[in-house]
Protein backbone atom coordinates (compact mmCIF):
# COMPACT_ATOMS: atom_id res chain seq x y z
CA UNK A 1 0.00 0.00 0.00
CA UNK A 2 2.80 2.35 0.92
CA UNK A 3 3.27 3.83 -2.52
CA UNK A 4 -0.11 3.18 -3.99
CA UNK A 5 -1.07 6.82 -4.40
CA UNK A 6 -0.23 9.78 -6.52
CA UNK A 7 0.05 13.25 -5.17
CA UNK A 8 -2.07 15.61 -7.16
CA UNK A 9 -0.47 18.63 -5.57
CA UNK A 10 2.96 17.78 -6.84
CA UNK A 11 2.60 19.38 -10.25
CA UNK A 12 5.33 21.87 -9.45
CA UNK A 13 7.93 19.14 -9.17
CA UNK A 14 10.32 17.91 -11.77
CA UNK A 15 8.39 15.39 -13.82
CA UNK A 16 11.47 13.25 -14.35
CA UNK A 17 11.71 12.44 -10.64
CA UNK A 18 9.49 10.16 -8.65
CA UNK A 19 7.14 12.21 -6.47
CA UNK A 20 8.91 11.70 -3.14
CA UNK A 21 12.36 12.35 -4.55
CA UNK A 22 11.06 15.57 -6.05
CA UNK A 23 9.18 16.56 -2.91
CA UNK A 24 12.12 16.01 -0.57
CA UNK A 25 14.58 17.63 -2.94
CA UNK A 26 12.35 20.71 -3.17
CA UNK A 27 12.11 20.92 0.59
CA UNK A 28 15.86 20.64 1.03
CA UNK A 29 16.34 23.30 -1.66
CA UNK A 30 14.00 25.65 0.14
CA UNK A 31 15.49 25.14 3.58
CA UNK A 32 19.10 25.27 2.42
CA UNK A 33 18.34 28.31 0.28
CA UNK A 34 16.99 30.10 3.32
CA UNK A 35 20.01 29.11 5.37
CA UNK A 36 17.88 27.12 7.79
CA UNK A 37 19.68 23.83 7.32
CA UNK A 38 23.11 22.76 6.14
CA UNK A 39 23.02 19.93 3.58
CA UNK A 40 26.43 18.80 4.82
CA UNK A 41 24.88 18.22 8.24
CA UNK A 42 22.38 15.92 6.56
CA UNK A 43 25.27 14.05 4.95
CA UNK A 44 26.87 13.65 8.36
CA UNK A 45 23.64 12.38 9.94
CA UNK A 46 23.13 9.88 7.16
CA UNK A 47 26.70 8.69 7.61
CA UNK A 48 26.04 8.07 11.31
CA UNK A 49 22.91 5.99 10.71
CA UNK A 50 24.05 4.26 7.56
CA UNK A 51 27.56 3.34 8.67
CA UNK A 52 28.08 3.73 12.42
CA UNK A 53 24.95 3.10 14.46
CA UNK A 54 23.20 -0.19 13.91
CA UNK A 55 22.26 -3.52 15.45
CA UNK A 56 25.92 -4.51 15.81
CA UNK A 57 25.93 -2.11 18.77
CA UNK A 58 23.12 -3.98 20.45
CA UNK A 59 24.74 -7.31 19.60
CA UNK A 60 27.85 -6.23 21.54
CA UNK A 61 25.66 -5.32 24.51
CA UNK A 62 23.99 -8.72 24.42
CA UNK A 63 27.29 -10.58 23.98
CA UNK A 64 28.71 -8.72 26.96
CA UNK A 65 25.65 -9.62 29.02
CA UNK A 66 25.99 -13.26 27.98
CA UNK A 67 29.66 -13.29 28.95
CA UNK A 68 29.71 -11.18 32.05
CA UNK A 69 27.17 -11.73 34.84
CA UNK A 70 28.11 -8.47 36.52
CA UNK A 71 27.43 -6.56 33.32
CA UNK A 72 24.19 -8.44 32.87
CA UNK A 73 23.15 -7.41 36.34
CA UNK A 74 24.10 -3.79 35.68
CA UNK A 75 22.20 -3.92 32.38
CA UNK A 76 19.15 -5.15 34.25
CA UNK A 77 19.38 -2.40 36.88
CA UNK A 78 20.54 0.56 34.80
CA UNK A 79 20.57 -0.18 31.11
CA UNK A 80 21.35 3.38 30.05
CA UNK A 81 24.57 3.46 32.06
CA UNK A 82 25.61 -0.10 31.28
CA UNK A 83 25.11 0.45 27.56
CA UNK A 84 26.90 3.80 27.70
CA UNK A 85 29.90 2.03 29.24
CA UNK A 86 30.29 0.26 25.88
CA UNK A 87 30.16 3.58 24.06
CA UNK A 88 26.57 3.50 22.85
CA UNK A 89 24.61 6.61 23.72
CA UNK A 90 22.47 9.21 22.10
CA UNK A 91 19.35 10.00 20.20
CA UNK A 92 16.47 7.58 20.78
CA UNK A 93 18.51 5.76 23.37
CA UNK A 94 18.56 8.31 26.17
CA UNK A 95 16.47 6.16 28.51
CA UNK A 96 17.19 2.48 27.96
CA UNK A 97 15.63 -0.58 29.53
CA UNK A 98 16.87 -4.09 28.88
CA UNK A 99 14.34 -6.90 29.15
CA UNK A 100 15.64 -10.44 29.44
CA UNK A 101 14.06 -13.46 27.81
CA UNK A 102 13.81 -16.51 30.05
CA UNK A 103 12.61 -20.05 29.58
CA UNK A 104 9.25 -18.85 30.91
CA UNK A 105 8.83 -15.46 29.25
CA UNK A 106 9.46 -14.09 25.78
CA UNK A 107 9.68 -10.32 25.33
CA UNK A 108 8.48 -8.40 22.29
CA UNK A 109 8.88 -4.66 21.69
CA UNK A 110 6.51 -2.47 19.71
CA UNK A 111 5.45 1.15 19.40
CA UNK A 112 1.76 1.13 18.56
CA UNK A 113 1.56 4.93 18.42
CA UNK A 114 4.48 5.73 16.12
CA UNK A 115 7.93 4.23 15.59
CA UNK A 116 9.82 4.49 18.90
CA UNK A 117 12.86 2.24 18.71
CA UNK A 118 16.25 2.14 20.45
CA UNK A 119 18.34 3.80 17.74
CA UNK A 120 21.53 3.91 19.81
CA UNK A 121 21.73 0.12 19.98
CA UNK A 122 19.71 -1.04 16.97
CA UNK A 123 20.04 1.82 14.50
CA UNK A 124 17.12 2.92 12.39
CA UNK A 125 14.07 0.67 12.57
CA UNK A 126 13.06 -1.58 9.69
CA UNK A 127 10.03 -0.58 7.63
CA UNK A 128 7.82 -3.29 9.12
CA UNK A 129 8.47 -2.03 12.65
CA UNK A 130 7.10 1.39 11.71
CA UNK A 131 4.14 0.09 9.71
CA UNK A 132 0.54 -0.52 10.82
CA UNK A 133 0.46 -4.32 10.34
CA UNK A 134 3.10 -4.93 13.03
CA UNK A 135 2.11 -2.00 15.23
CA UNK A 136 -1.56 -2.99 15.27
CA UNK A 137 -1.20 -6.72 15.85
CA UNK A 138 1.79 -7.06 18.20
CA UNK A 139 -0.37 -6.13 21.21
CA UNK A 140 -3.40 -8.28 20.37
CA UNK A 141 -2.00 -11.27 18.46
CA UNK A 142 1.71 -11.62 19.25
CA UNK A 143 1.77 -15.32 18.38
CA UNK A 144 0.29 -14.59 14.98
CA UNK A 145 2.91 -11.88 14.52
CA UNK A 146 5.76 -14.20 15.53
CA UNK A 147 4.48 -16.84 13.12
CA UNK A 148 5.00 -14.36 10.27
CA UNK A 149 8.64 -14.17 11.35
CA UNK A 150 8.82 -17.97 11.27
CA UNK A 151 8.83 -18.24 15.06
CA UNK A 152 6.68 -20.56 17.15
CA UNK A 153 6.82 -20.39 20.92
CA UNK A 154 5.70 -23.22 23.19
CA UNK A 155 2.04 -22.78 24.08
CA UNK A 156 2.76 -22.15 27.73
CA UNK A 157 5.50 -19.57 27.20
CA UNK A 158 4.38 -16.24 28.58
CA UNK A 159 4.57 -13.36 26.15
CA UNK A 160 5.39 -9.92 27.42
CA UNK A 161 4.81 -7.09 24.98
CA UNK A 162 6.38 -3.70 25.70
CA UNK A 163 4.51 -0.88 24.01
CA UNK A 164 6.96 2.05 23.86
CA UNK A 165 4.43 4.78 24.58
CA UNK A 166 6.89 7.14 26.30
CA UNK A 167 10.60 7.92 25.94
CA UNK A 168 11.85 4.65 27.46
CA UNK A 169 13.44 2.45 24.82
CA UNK A 170 13.52 -1.31 25.17
CA UNK A 171 16.24 -3.76 24.20
CA UNK A 172 15.40 -7.45 24.34
CA UNK A 173 18.24 -9.60 25.64
CA UNK A 174 17.61 -13.04 24.16
CA UNK A 175 18.65 -16.24 25.89
CA UNK A 176 22.12 -17.43 25.01
CA UNK A 177 21.75 -20.33 22.58
CA UNK A 178 22.88 -23.77 23.63
CA UNK A 179 26.35 -24.76 22.53
CA UNK A 180 27.79 -21.25 22.73
CA UNK A 181 29.90 -21.88 25.82
CA UNK A 182 33.35 -21.60 24.33
CA UNK A 183 32.76 -18.64 22.04
CA UNK A 184 34.45 -15.25 22.24
CA UNK A 185 32.43 -12.08 22.70
CA UNK A 186 32.78 -11.31 19.00
CA UNK A 187 31.64 -14.78 18.08
CA UNK A 188 28.71 -14.44 20.47
CA UNK A 189 27.82 -11.06 19.01
CA UNK A 190 27.66 -12.66 15.57
CA UNK A 191 24.82 -14.87 16.81
CA UNK A 192 22.73 -11.89 17.88
CA UNK A 193 20.33 -10.78 15.15
CA UNK A 194 18.49 -7.50 15.07
CA UNK A 195 15.15 -9.28 15.31
CA UNK A 196 16.28 -11.21 18.39
CA UNK A 197 16.74 -7.85 20.15
CA UNK A 198 13.21 -6.74 19.16
CA UNK A 199 11.70 -10.08 20.09
CA UNK A 200 10.61 -11.09 16.60
CA UNK A 201 13.45 -13.58 16.31
CA UNK A 202 15.89 -15.75 18.19
CA UNK A 203 19.70 -15.69 18.08
CA UNK A 204 21.38 -17.85 15.53
CA UNK A 205 22.63 -21.25 16.67
CA UNK A 206 26.42 -21.55 16.88
CA UNK A 207 28.04 -23.42 14.01
CA UNK A 208 28.41 -27.03 15.18
Amino acid at each position, binding site marked *: MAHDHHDHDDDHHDNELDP*MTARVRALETILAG*KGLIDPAAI*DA*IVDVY*ENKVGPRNGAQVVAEAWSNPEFADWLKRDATAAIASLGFTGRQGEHMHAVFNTAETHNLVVCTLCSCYPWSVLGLPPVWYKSPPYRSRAVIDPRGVLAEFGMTLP*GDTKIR*VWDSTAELRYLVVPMRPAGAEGLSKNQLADLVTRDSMIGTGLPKAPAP
Partner: protein
Amino acid sequence: MNGPHDVGGDMAFGPINPEPNEPFFHADWEKRALGLVITAGAMGAWNIDESRRTRESLHPAVYYGSSYYEIWIRGLELLLQRHGFVTANDLKAGLPVDPAATPKRVMKAADAAPAMARGGPCNRPITAPPKFRAGERVRARNMHPQHHTRLPRYARGKLGVVEAVHDGYVLPDTNAHGKGENPERLYTIAFDGRELWGEDGDPTLTVSIDAWESYLEPA
Protein backbone atom coordinates in the same frame (compact mmCIF):
# COMPACT_ATOMS: atom_id res chain seq x y z
CA MET B 1 -6.65 13.15 19.77
CA ASN B 2 -8.09 9.84 18.64
CA GLY B 3 -6.13 9.78 15.41
CA PRO B 4 -4.88 7.35 12.79
CA HIS B 5 -1.63 6.67 14.63
CA ASP B 6 -3.39 4.75 17.40
CA VAL B 7 -3.54 1.36 15.71
CA GLY B 8 -3.11 -1.09 18.60
CA GLY B 9 -5.65 -3.90 18.18
CA ASP B 10 -6.64 -3.11 14.59
CA MET B 11 -6.80 -6.13 12.29
CA ALA B 12 -7.22 -4.92 8.72
CA PHE B 13 -3.69 -3.93 7.70
CA GLY B 14 -2.64 -7.21 6.18
CA PRO B 15 0.63 -9.11 6.53
CA ILE B 16 3.79 -7.74 8.12
CA ASN B 17 6.10 -8.76 5.28
CA PRO B 18 9.48 -8.48 6.97
CA GLU B 19 12.18 -7.91 4.35
CA PRO B 20 15.26 -10.14 4.63
CA ASN B 21 18.52 -8.19 4.89
CA GLU B 22 16.60 -4.95 4.76
CA PRO B 23 18.83 -1.92 4.11
CA PHE B 24 18.59 1.13 6.37
CA PHE B 25 17.31 3.16 3.43
CA HIS B 26 15.34 2.13 0.36
CA ALA B 27 15.99 5.26 -1.67
CA ASP B 28 18.20 8.30 -1.49
CA TRP B 29 15.24 10.53 -0.71
CA GLU B 30 14.75 8.61 2.54
CA LYS B 31 18.26 9.61 3.60
CA ARG B 32 17.57 13.24 2.91
CA ALA B 33 14.20 12.95 4.66
CA LEU B 34 15.85 11.62 7.80
CA GLY B 35 18.42 14.38 7.74
CA LEU B 36 15.88 17.09 7.02
CA VAL B 37 13.68 16.04 9.93
CA ILE B 38 16.66 16.08 12.29
CA THR B 39 18.31 19.26 11.03
CA ALA B 40 15.02 21.15 10.82
CA GLY B 41 14.16 19.93 14.33
CA ALA B 42 17.54 21.25 15.48
CA MET B 43 16.34 24.79 14.68
CA GLY B 44 14.65 24.53 18.07
CA ALA B 45 11.20 25.75 17.05
CA TRP B 46 9.32 22.59 18.01
CA ASN B 47 9.83 19.48 20.09
CA ILE B 48 9.38 15.76 19.43
CA ASP B 49 5.88 15.82 20.90
CA GLU B 50 4.76 18.52 18.49
CA SER B 51 6.31 16.50 15.65
CA ARG B 52 4.28 13.47 16.65
CA ARG B 53 1.12 15.51 17.12
CA THR B 54 1.56 16.91 13.62
CA ARG B 55 2.04 13.53 11.96
CA GLU B 56 -1.02 12.23 13.79
CA SER B 57 -3.11 15.05 12.38
CA LEU B 58 -2.76 13.74 8.82
CA HIS B 59 -5.98 12.45 7.32
CA PRO B 60 -6.21 8.69 7.97
CA ALA B 61 -6.24 7.92 4.23
CA VAL B 62 -2.94 9.77 3.90
CA TYR B 63 -1.43 8.34 7.08
CA TYR B 64 -2.25 4.75 6.11
CA GLY B 65 -1.35 5.28 2.46
CA SER B 66 2.11 6.68 3.17
CA SER B 67 5.42 5.13 4.10
CA TYR B 68 6.83 6.33 7.41
CA TYR B 69 9.39 8.64 5.83
CA GLU B 70 6.59 10.11 3.73
CA ILE B 71 4.59 10.71 6.91
CA TRP B 72 7.68 12.42 8.32
CA ILE B 73 8.04 14.68 5.31
CA ARG B 74 4.34 15.59 5.25
CA GLY B 75 4.55 16.35 8.96
CA LEU B 76 7.71 18.39 8.48
CA GLU B 77 6.08 20.53 5.78
CA LEU B 78 3.26 21.31 8.19
CA LEU B 79 5.63 22.11 11.06
CA LEU B 80 7.75 24.39 8.89
CA GLN B 81 4.69 26.29 7.74
CA ARG B 82 3.20 26.56 11.23
CA HIS B 83 6.43 28.06 12.54
CA GLY B 84 6.97 30.48 9.68
CA PHE B 85 10.00 28.89 8.05
CA VAL B 86 8.31 27.85 4.84
CA THR B 87 5.22 29.07 3.01
CA ALA B 88 2.81 27.51 0.59
CA ASN B 89 4.46 29.71 -2.04
CA ASP B 90 7.83 28.17 -1.32
CA LEU B 91 6.42 24.67 -1.60
CA LYS B 92 4.58 25.49 -4.79
CA ALA B 93 7.73 26.92 -6.35
CA GLY B 94 10.01 24.25 -4.97
CA LEU B 95 12.35 27.12 -4.23
CA PRO B 96 12.84 29.67 -1.46
CA VAL B 97 10.44 32.48 -2.32
CA ASP B 98 9.25 34.05 0.91
CA PRO B 99 11.27 35.22 3.90
CA ALA B 100 11.59 32.88 6.87
CA ALA B 101 11.46 33.15 10.63
CA THR B 102 14.82 33.17 12.36
CA PRO B 103 15.84 29.80 13.79
CA LYS B 104 17.35 29.55 17.26
CA ARG B 105 20.26 27.68 15.72
CA VAL B 106 21.39 25.93 12.54
CA MET B 107 23.08 22.55 12.91
CA LYS B 108 26.51 22.55 11.30
CA ALA B 109 28.01 19.44 9.73
CA ALA B 110 30.62 19.12 12.46
CA ASP B 111 27.90 19.24 15.13
CA ALA B 112 25.80 16.49 13.61
CA ALA B 113 27.51 13.33 14.84
CA PRO B 114 28.11 14.71 18.35
CA ALA B 115 24.47 15.81 18.55
CA MET B 116 23.31 12.33 17.57
CA ALA B 117 25.60 10.80 20.22
CA ARG B 118 24.33 13.28 22.81
CA GLY B 119 20.60 12.85 22.20
CA GLY B 120 18.03 14.80 24.17
CA PRO B 121 16.97 13.35 27.50
CA CYS B 122 13.33 13.88 28.44
CA ASN B 123 13.51 13.04 32.13
CA ARG B 124 13.13 15.96 34.51
CA PRO B 125 13.63 16.33 38.23
CA ILE B 126 10.39 16.05 40.10
CA THR B 127 9.95 16.58 43.80
CA ALA B 128 6.43 15.31 44.42
CA PRO B 129 6.36 11.74 45.72
CA PRO B 130 4.89 9.13 43.38
CA LYS B 131 1.12 8.84 43.66
CA PHE B 132 1.25 5.11 42.91
CA ARG B 133 3.64 2.42 44.14
CA ALA B 134 5.00 -0.66 42.42
CA GLY B 135 2.58 -3.58 42.68
CA GLU B 136 -0.46 -1.33 43.08
CA ARG B 137 -3.49 -1.90 40.88
CA VAL B 138 -4.45 1.14 38.85
CA ARG B 139 -6.86 1.97 36.08
CA ALA B 140 -5.82 3.77 32.91
CA ARG B 141 -8.22 6.69 32.61
CA ASN B 142 -10.93 6.54 29.99
CA MET B 143 -9.82 9.81 28.46
CA HIS B 144 -10.50 11.08 24.95
CA PRO B 145 -8.87 14.49 24.76
CA GLN B 146 -8.82 16.62 21.65
CA HIS B 147 -5.12 17.21 22.32
CA HIS B 148 -2.16 14.92 21.70
CA THR B 149 -1.77 12.13 24.22
CA ARG B 150 0.27 8.95 24.54
CA LEU B 151 -2.30 6.77 26.25
CA PRO B 152 -3.37 4.29 23.57
CA ARG B 153 -7.08 3.65 23.18
CA TYR B 154 -6.77 -0.09 23.76
CA ALA B 155 -5.58 0.54 27.33
CA ARG B 156 -8.10 3.22 28.30
CA GLY B 157 -10.42 2.21 31.09
CA LYS B 158 -8.46 -0.99 31.68
CA LEU B 159 -7.09 -2.31 34.99
CA GLY B 160 -3.38 -2.89 35.28
CA VAL B 161 -0.57 -3.21 37.79
CA VAL B 162 2.20 -0.71 38.41
CA GLU B 163 5.35 -2.56 37.51
CA ALA B 164 7.89 0.24 37.72
CA VAL B 165 7.97 3.81 38.97
CA HIS B 166 10.25 6.04 36.91
CA ASP B 167 11.56 9.61 37.02
CA GLY B 168 9.60 12.64 36.01
CA TYR B 169 9.27 12.98 32.24
CA VAL B 170 8.09 15.77 29.97
CA LEU B 171 4.32 15.47 29.55
CA PRO B 172 3.50 15.11 25.82
CA ASP B 173 -0.09 16.26 26.28
CA THR B 174 0.99 19.84 26.96
CA ASN B 175 4.44 19.87 25.40
CA ALA B 176 3.02 18.94 21.99
CA HIS B 177 0.94 22.12 22.00
CA GLY B 178 3.53 24.61 23.22
CA LYS B 179 1.98 24.56 26.68
CA GLY B 180 5.07 23.62 28.61
CA GLU B 181 6.90 20.51 29.72
CA ASN B 182 4.87 19.98 32.91
CA PRO B 183 6.92 16.94 33.92
CA GLU B 184 5.03 14.15 35.59
CA ARG B 185 6.06 10.86 37.09
CA LEU B 186 6.12 8.01 34.55
CA TYR B 187 5.05 4.45 35.34
CA THR B 188 5.25 1.12 33.55
CA ILE B 189 1.78 -0.45 33.78
CA ALA B 190 1.25 -4.11 32.94
CA PHE B 191 -2.13 -5.35 31.69
CA ASP B 192 -3.30 -8.90 31.40
CA GLY B 193 -4.13 -9.78 27.79
CA ARG B 194 -7.60 -10.88 28.86
CA GLU B 195 -8.22 -7.54 30.53
CA LEU B 196 -7.36 -5.78 27.27
CA TRP B 197 -9.03 -8.12 24.78
CA GLY B 198 -11.54 -10.17 26.75
CA GLU B 199 -11.97 -13.83 26.00
CA ASP B 200 -10.38 -13.31 22.59
CA GLY B 201 -7.13 -12.37 24.33
CA ASP B 202 -4.12 -14.67 24.43
CA PRO B 203 -4.07 -16.13 27.98
CA THR B 204 -0.25 -16.08 27.99
CA LEU B 205 -0.09 -12.38 27.09
CA THR B 206 0.86 -9.38 29.22
CA VAL B 207 1.14 -5.95 27.58
CA SER B 208 2.74 -2.98 29.26
CA ILE B 209 2.61 0.69 28.45
CA ASP B 210 4.53 3.60 29.92
CA ALA B 211 1.99 6.00 31.38
CA TRP B 212 2.26 9.45 32.91
CA GLU B 213 0.71 9.91 36.34
CA SER B 214 -2.29 11.88 35.07
CA TYR B 215 -3.19 8.97 32.77
CA LEU B 216 -3.87 6.81 35.83
CA GLU B 217 -6.41 6.59 38.61
CA PRO B 218 -6.63 4.32 41.63
CA ALA B 219 -8.29 1.00 40.83
